């Protein structure tokens, strides 16, 4: 079965972190801390999302001269929609009924 794009558990963790405050621009390091993903796992996910136009990026001018500008991330509208969809799918998978589901009666 071909895997859905952007549906790995790691990507879902990134979605969770980004959806916590969808309007806020986030730092890579903070995302790394919140998701528990190391830079080598987190950034490839961010790159994939950005290449699919699901994530927007911008550079924050350095507050202190001499410090490098930091990169910021935020889900696009498409990205947020997909993130919600993937979260719902994951939740459905997690609560998938047993092979013989108990018939539900209307109440």
């Amino acid at each position, binding site marked *: 079965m071909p895997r859905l794009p952007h549906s790995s558990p790691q990507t879902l963790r990134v979605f969770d972190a980004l959806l916590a405050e969808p309007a806020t621009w986030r*730092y*890579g*390091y*903070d995302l*790394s801390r919140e998701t528990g993903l*190391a*830079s*080598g*796992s*987190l*950034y*490839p996910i*961010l*790159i994939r999302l950005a290449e699919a136009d699901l994530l927007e*990026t911008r550079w924050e001018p350095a507050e202190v001269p001499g*410090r*490098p*500008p*930091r*990169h910021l991330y935020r889900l696009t509208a498409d990205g947020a929609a997909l993130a919600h969809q993937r979260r719902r799918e994951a939740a459905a998978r997690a609560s998938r009924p047993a092979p013989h589901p108990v018939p539900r009666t209307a109440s």
Partner: protein
Amino acid sequence: MSRVHRAGRWVLARAAHGPWSTAVLAELDQVTGRWATVRWVAGGLRIAWRERLGVGRRRRVLRLVVAAVVAAVAVSQLLTVRFIPTSAMEPTLRVADRVVVDRLSFRVTGLHHGDLVVLTVEDGTETFTTVSRVVGLAGDRISCADGRVFRNSIQLDEPYVHGAETLCLDATVPEGGIYVMGDNRALARDSRYFGSQPASSVSGRLL
């Protein structure tokens, strides 16, 4: 700032090659702790590698590495270098000669008279691996007279024994069997002692 931090920054700054690795580098200031720093830098190097090579070239490099490993394993399976700790094949092979054994082609082409083979012999309770020459194949009748070997009553021309005399009892090689003799007829322990062996006991042919 610790030494680890400075070293990590230096390494990553040299490797950084695009927006993403630069972004990882810019976050390094936030990272605290020695191992966290090392991990962060290692991840950044991975990103830098990605950006440097591009997806297409990265795939090509990976494919090349995989192909090289597969080829190395295949060759080591098909061709092995063996050490001959026996005088059974003197003078063709000296004691302690190293030979290259082809483990595949005889399975395709079959064995022929005169082939040098590596075979594992089960003689009673004893099992040993030796190198010998195929003298008889299934159905051949092997006999000796006047120190010479005959196959189906035809005398063999055996320049490789350098005139050594051969003594043997008459034998007929059964179906699926081979009859082997070492070139050193005076000393070799071969089918004259342990009889015909199943062709399946052959593990390779000398190149």
